[in-house]
């Protein structure tokens, strides 16, 4: 990856992180869009799995610093999602919008499952409701937002040759 493309990817990543801490609390939805997962997924498919895991770990750690009671859970979930995305992108390689949406959906859902499991705060019905209702809903919204952002950021991420 060239230096320019790397800079553009870093810019898009930073933009998504900023959106996570500005737009998300501003919207205040019950099932919020997870811009961090989108950022990690978009970054992960451009780097090697080890680097993707490191990016996921650091991003998760930043998110965990806001919730010390679940410290480490976000880092673990983000590491897993980042590494898996980097590997899976090599397997399911496609430039299809629907596939990208599905990719975001699965990534967010997987993140939530790992996060809730590692957090060890929910049990029984509450855990099932979170995993089978709220997490898929949030994943769906994140997938929609991810596709929209991907379309908007396409000129930045993949500049057309002049």
């Amino acid at each position, binding site marked *: *990856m060239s230096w320019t493309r790397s800079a553009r990817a870093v810019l898009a990543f930073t933009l998504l992180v900023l959106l996570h801490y500005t737009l998300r*609390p501003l919207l205040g939805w019950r099932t919020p869009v997870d811009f961090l997962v989108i950022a990690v997924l978009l970054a992960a*498919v451009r780097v090697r799995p080890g680097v993707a895991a490191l990016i996921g770990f650091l991003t998760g750690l930043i998110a965990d*610093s806001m919730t*010390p009671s679940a*410290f480490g859970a976000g880092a*673990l979930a983000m590491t897993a999602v980042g590494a898996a995305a980097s590997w899976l992108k090599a397997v399911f*390689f496609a430039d299809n919008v629907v596939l*990208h949406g599905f990719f975001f959906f699965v990534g967010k859902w997987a993140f939530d499952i790992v996060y809730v499991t590692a957090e060890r705060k929910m049990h029984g019905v509450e855990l099932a409701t979170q995993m089978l209702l709220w997490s898929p809903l949030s994943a769906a919204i994140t997938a929609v937002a991810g596709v929209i952002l991907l379309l908007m950021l396409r000129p930045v*991420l993949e500049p057309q040759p002049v």
Partner: protein
Amino acid sequence: MARAVRSGTRGDTVLLVACCVMALLATVLPVNLREAIAGGLRRTVVAPLVSLQEQAVRGRSAFLSREATTSRYDSVAVRNMELSRLEGENQRLRALLGLGRELEWGFVSAEALRVQRIGEDNTLTLTVGARSGVEPKTPVIAPEGLVGMVRTVDPTTSIAIMWTHTDFAASAMSADRSAYGIVYPHLSETGRGENIPPERYLLELRGVAFRSALKPGTPIVTSGLGGVYPAGIPIGTVLGELRTSEGWARTYLVRPAVRPPDVSNVIVLLPKRVEDQSVSRIWRSPASADSAARRIAAAGDSIARRAAADSVRAAEAAARRAADSTARTSDSTSGRATPTSVGVPVAPRAGQPDTAARRAPVRSDTARAPVRRPDAAATGARP
């Protein structure tokens, strides 16, 4: 999206395992250590993001609170509008109660319902009828003065015309009885006929003798001539003289005492009360119509009456206590009564005027007012 880099090297695996191990370690760290690391991150690397998040949360809270404030303001404004209407209605009803207290007998109070039809805006439907003793041509009054008269009567309702009706006429005089005339609604020059609405809600005092010049502001009351309206009911005040073609009499423009939009509850004077001709004492000071209206309104103010009664009772009790203590003091010293010292209230002795004691007992309800005339029951009045 760009093609991903094929993976599988040992370095990637090592990095992945290391990240996973560190993350797992973070989850099992002691609470204080976890807090310390998280706090350190928040104060350094994550500080700008924390600040951004705080601002976003504050912005959302401000937006939500603005909505709540706006809705609260709206509801308060709506209630305020309702309050002013209720205050007005309360004031009118109190004034009507006061008028009822002043009248004491020979009347029935009624709600005045407006007929919402074109050409019928000068009539009122009253919620009392023949069963309450109402008869045609009985006067309809309000605390401010004359409203009109009953035209047709049914068993439970009756129809009254207001002074704005083209058929209205009342024998009137100036309050000092220096000028007499007939009051009519003030109509436009071309509109003095049937079904022509009066102009500008004013009255005319016609047929005033040429020698009787009335100044603007002179109160006009009913004269009692003609037998329909008892004497002394305020009609309005003179605004000025109208130039007419008649050379033998003057015509004056009169501002009515009662505004038609304010008429919602009225009092119908029953025939025996009209014959009695004692209504004029209610508006005994027609020269100051405002003060008379205030007095009537105050008479209907039960709170003010109760406060006055309480103050009278307190004064009486204080006087009684002072008299007792004085009597005890004189008994213990010389065995005979001594003059009271300065500043100590003296209880009224027999034959001594006592204004507080002589005040009439305050009634809290006009329904319980004593009927002074024995024939009041025969009239079917509801004092």
